[in-house]
């Protein structure tokens, strides 16, 4: 089943949903069905976030499960001061980053990610653009990649990235600067503009 990407909407959700509040209370009391309802309500947004971390559907689904299992065991840490979606986004960020770090230790897995030579010039569609951006970002170190993912796809500012990652703002700024510089060099080396026919 394909579901619309809503990662940005997820982080910008304004209020704590009353239905969420009820289900969280029930889940804390041991009602597993209540937690399953929370999963069903938020899984699309979580999957959308994690789709930025891997483009393998099976891996993505596994990461979504990890996020909710982690959320369940950490449910007492959710104080209800902000929307559940924000809290889940932070967990998703942690789970995705952990996945990348594990993957980067397996050098072969990273080496397999490269630019798709079949990218259509001129007007790539959403999936093609997504694959291309993913392939470019995959060449960055995990920390720099995470900063750009949050900046580009979730429209996060420095403060939000610092909150989500637990890094200092100075560190986020430095990583963003280095990531953009490195990304530009990679795109130039890969002749991205020529490949897309956007040279004029």
């Amino acid at each position, binding site marked *: 089943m394909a579901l619309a990407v809503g990662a940005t909407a997820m982080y910008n959700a304004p209020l704590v949903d009353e239905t969420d509040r009820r289900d969280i209370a029930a889940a804390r009391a041991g009602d597993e069905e209540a937690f399953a309802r929370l999963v069903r309500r938020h*899984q699309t947004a979580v999957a959308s976030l994690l789709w930025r971390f891997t483009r393998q559907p099976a891996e993505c689904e596994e990461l979504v499960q990890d996020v909710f299992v982690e959320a369940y065991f950490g449910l007492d840490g959710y104080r209800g001061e902000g929307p559940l979606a924000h809290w889940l986004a932070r967990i998703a960020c942690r789970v995705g980053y952990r996945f990348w770090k594990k993957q980067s230790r397996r050098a072969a897995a990273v080496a397999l990610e490269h630019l798709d030579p079949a990218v259509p010039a001129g007007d790539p569609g959403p999936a093609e653009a997504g694959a291309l951006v993913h392939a470019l970002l995959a060449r960055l170190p995990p920390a720099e990649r995470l900063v750009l993912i949050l900046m580009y796809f979730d429209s996060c500012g420095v403060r939000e990235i610092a909150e989500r990652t637990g890094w200092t703002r100075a560190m986020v700024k430095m990583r963003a600067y280095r990531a953009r510089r490195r990304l530009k060099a990679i795109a130039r080396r890969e002749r991205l503009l020529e490949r897309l026919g956007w040279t004029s």
Partner: protein
Amino acid sequence: MDELEAIEQLVVRARRERAPAGDVAAAVLVGIRAGRPAPVLPLSLVAAGAALAAGVVLTLAVHAWSSGTDPQAALFPVVEVMQP
């Protein structure tokens, strides 16, 4: 247009992409049941038993050490007898 601007334009398109997602609720519940920590009581019983056994072994070891004799000590009387 430079490379970073091109990437930003690609990101705008990529944001409209649909992520594949299925219902993971059942798998999450299985994961929760598998990851739930075991009750603490049996573990603490095992720990208490292990501590007790370690105490007994330590007591026996100290006793054996203090009552033991130097295996070379038996050689010295023999040396004395052999003196002219």
